[in-house]
């Protein structure tokens, strides 16, 4: 019994000793996510100078706990003690355990950084902090927020801070109804989905506030309805531009030359793999060029796919002119061979094609989110089509191509080497497909099956637009894209696609030559 008592006394004596080393940092090394989140919030409020770098380190997953209880931040030159900011030498990396992070911890980090960065030096940093506060809606932040608003010099940032203040006010149990109504008005003026989400959560407030919120919500929802129409059009244009890119090459090989090229999708796939190879080389040799990798990949993809196209034309297709069925079968077989060849060469797995920084993220146009990668593809598709038209219209090669396709024998009689022109035309179509592959590598999987997903759509676009007519291809790609995007929300992605196909069949029944059929004797033959 005595022994037990001694133990108890010892433990009691020891307890304060432990408590001394306990500080806001200790909880970060915990195994329990709730404890870590609580520690982060406490640390942010503690006013400790090291709070900001430590919490930033958690965000970057660069904070580690050492066995002796110290916390280390991994930085470029070496490890730094989180509590003091002093560099630490002789760290045994194997003993370190990363601070555990889950979504709850991440939310705590975002909220903590919001409160810490409200007084950041750059307006951009302050705006981001205010946005984080808007999402975390922590009433404890209100005093700091008022101070920040009073000190703010940038008008735009102040607006965001006011919105954050309104959001936090609505979560504040001590706020008066008048304050809340004012807050609802601020949120209503902000608009957008985040505001709707916030207003939607106010159903259990006092009747006056709940009514104002409901009213604001209906107004915003009505606006949202309008925006969703605009959104469908923009998304349709974006899908249309992808279809246009995929089909532009086919408009040449199938539309102008009349070759049913089932391996067209594989030309696209080869373009995408060229992008992958370019990025691999850049990553290994010249990482600083990464942002420009796509600009390098576009001409290379054109050359590689175009070159392979010429080989295919010389080696296979030229024996099959005028026999559409055999061409169909042979090119289909060729597409299988190419797919399996790529699979054997690169493996069956998807290849990681990176997105340059300038193509990541999105911009808000009113109520519509437009992603930069899609926007870039729209511009690229327009440029490719314009370049293609210019080649056909203004260059000697274009002139010969048109001459050969319109009247082969007459062109030959004029001294044009028609077989050579055939090869170049096919190469041009394939090269365009390769360039489409560069763009598609940004939005789709780079795998051996990449091309299969686009071949049917491409044929649809060319047939619908009118064989042999590039303007028709443009109009038809955009039309199909927009119709698809309007049907998708109503009918769902699967049924939407089926509807488009049915509409297309009905249309072809009435106008077998597509929207813009070519006229003239050359077509009649």
């Amino acid at each position: 019994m005595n022994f037990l008592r001694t133990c108890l006394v010892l433990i009691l004596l020891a307890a304060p000793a432990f408590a001394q080393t306990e500080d806001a940092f200790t909880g970060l090394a915990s195994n329990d996510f709730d404890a870590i989140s609580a520690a982060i919030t406490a640390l942010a409020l503690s006013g400790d100078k090291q709070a900001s770098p430590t919490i930033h380190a958690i965000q970057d997953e660069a904070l580690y706990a050492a066995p002796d209880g110290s916390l280390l931040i991994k930085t470029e030159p070496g490890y730094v003690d989180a509590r003091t900011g002093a560099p630490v030498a002789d760290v045994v990396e194997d003993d370190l355990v990363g601070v555990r992070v889950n979504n709850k911890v991440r939310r705590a980090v975002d909220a903590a950084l919001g409160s810490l960065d409200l007084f950041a030096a750059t307006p951009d940093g302050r705006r981001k902090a205010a946005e984080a506060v808007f999402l975390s809606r922590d009433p404890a932040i209100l005093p700091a927020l008022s101070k920040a608003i009073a000190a703010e010099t940038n008008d735009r940032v102040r607006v965001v801070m006011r919105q954050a203040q309104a959001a936090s006010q609505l979560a504040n149990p001590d706020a008066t109804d008048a304050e809340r109504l004012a807050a609802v008005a601020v949120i209503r003026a902000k608009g957008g989905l985040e505001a709707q989400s916030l207003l939607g959560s106010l159903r259990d407030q006092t009747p006056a506030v709940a009514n104002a919120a409901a009213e604001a919500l209906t107004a915003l929802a009505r606006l949202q309805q309008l925006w969703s129409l605009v959104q469908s059009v923009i998304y349709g244009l974006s899908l249309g531009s992808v279809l246009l890119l995929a089909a532009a090459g086919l408009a040449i090989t199938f539309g102008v030359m009349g070759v049913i090229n089932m391996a067209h999708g594989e030309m696209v796939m080869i373009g995408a793999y060229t992008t992958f190879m370019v990025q691999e080389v850049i990553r290994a040799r010249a990482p600083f060029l990464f942002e420009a990798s796509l600009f390098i990949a576009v001409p290379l993809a054109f050359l590689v796919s175009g070159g392979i196209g010429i080989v295919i034309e010389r080696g296979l297709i030229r024996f099959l002119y005028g026999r559409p069925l055999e061409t169909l079968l042979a090119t289909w077989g060729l597409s299988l061979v190419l797919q399996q060849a790529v699979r054997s060469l690169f493996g069956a797995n998807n290849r990681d094609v990176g997105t340059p920084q300038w193509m990541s993220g999105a911009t808000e146009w009113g109520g519509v989110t437009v992603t930069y990668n899609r926007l870039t593809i729209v511009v690229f598709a327009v440029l490719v089509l314009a370049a293609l038209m210019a080649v056909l219209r203004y260059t000697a090669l274009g002139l010969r191509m048109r001459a050969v396709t319109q009247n082969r024998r007459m062109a030959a009689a004029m001294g044009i080497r028609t077989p050579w022109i055939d090869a170049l035309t096919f190469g041009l179509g394939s090269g365009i497909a390769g360039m489409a592959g560069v763009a598609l590598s940004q939005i789709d999987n780079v795998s051996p099956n990449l091309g299969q997903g686009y071949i049917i759509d491409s044929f649809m676009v060319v047939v619908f637009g009118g064989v042999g007519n590039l303007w028709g291809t443009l109009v038809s790609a955009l039309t199909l894209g927009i119709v698809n995007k309007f049907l998708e929300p109503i009918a769902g992605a699967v049924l939407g696609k089926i509807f488009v196909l049915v509409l297309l069949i009905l249309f072809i029944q009435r106008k077998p030559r597509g929207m813009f059929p070519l006229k003239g004797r050359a077509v009649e033959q």
Partner: protein
Amino acid sequence: MASIRHWLRGIGLVTAAVAATSIMTPQAQAQTADTIKIGILHSLSGTMAISETTLKDVMLMLIDEQNKKGGLLGKKLQAVVVDPASNWPLFAEKARQLITVDKVAAVFGCWTSVSRKSVLPVFEETGNILFYPVQYEGEESSKNVFYTGAAPNQQAIPAVDYLMANEKVKRWVLAGTDYVYPRTTNKILEAYLKSKGVAADDIMINYIPFGHSDWQNIVASIKKFGSAGKKTAVVSTINGDANVPFYKELGNQGIKATDIPVVAFSVGEEELAGIDTKPLVGHLTAWNYFESINNPANKAFIAQWKAYTKNPKRTTNDPMEAHYIGFNMWIKAVQKAGTTDPAKVIDAMVGISVPNLTGGYSAMMPNHHITKPVLIGEIRADGQMNTVWQTSGTVVANEWSPYLEGSKDLIADWRAPLSCGNFNVVTGKCGGASK
């Protein structure tokens, strides 16, 4: 006459192409009396090659390993690899070839329920054994199939429970590729959510065609659905390939895991190896195994795998662990039965228990499914998973979902005297070998 010749030439080209693809598959031809043959039925070409090639490799490694230990019953094991080329009817054809021509003792293979349903009649007719290593929708139990992947209650339902308890999710988007696994899983999940008091308005179900790549509308509608003032999560049964553009679009439209988390059942380390994972950090996956699991058995397995494939970057994943468990179970069952005769091995299988790679044991239950722990992981920036939650023990599979009208009264028990895959406990009748 000339046109016929050209037709033939065209067909010849195509046949040559197809032949070229099938020649590339290594086919073990040698045949001796003192070997035991094991069939490997995984696609090495076509769309499913992306996932299945790895499983073929892991089987070859396991067989190699067993041979180094002295084989089985004093005989060497020999792998017979065939390529069903992601073509469902071809799966049945190749399965029949393995069983009747090559006379294999067991088959390890298939991925996707369509391929399994296609070979099922062949196995039931010939009495051979199939080990199916992938998570699936349940609602099946065959005498001849051992399901080493997860049933819905070993993956989907615990994931939903986790989101309800830890993320306080009130609104649900069930998004999936349009085929049998997502449709059945979502039917089960919808019934389960409703039984937990979730209103029909708070569930959005969305199906997407195979290989869908234009996600703008769907992601925008998820965003809109998620802005109703209630915490929203996406439960994704989207099939492998379409996931990459989906996650890219999520990242680009600024939907973060802290706002609307996505929990996926078909995204593993293998799929993540081909993506820039930074925008995905914090999104969830539910599996029964992660490569990042820290224990000696898993470390040894990973080291062996990297050495076998001579590629230090190769990842391991859940279906590989399923084959690891299935293969070791089969070895034990053969040793217990003292023969490779499928009928006797099937009887010996139930009750066999082997170590899994997560630090516990998995046992073969009478319903021909195995017990598994369920892990919830968050995707890390390096493409690995961070286990954030796991069941305290292993979970027994509900092959017949208790949440569906048609199956809640059914059980499977392949032990004598019941020996039935869909026994109705209310009527007391066995509905047949399988449905």
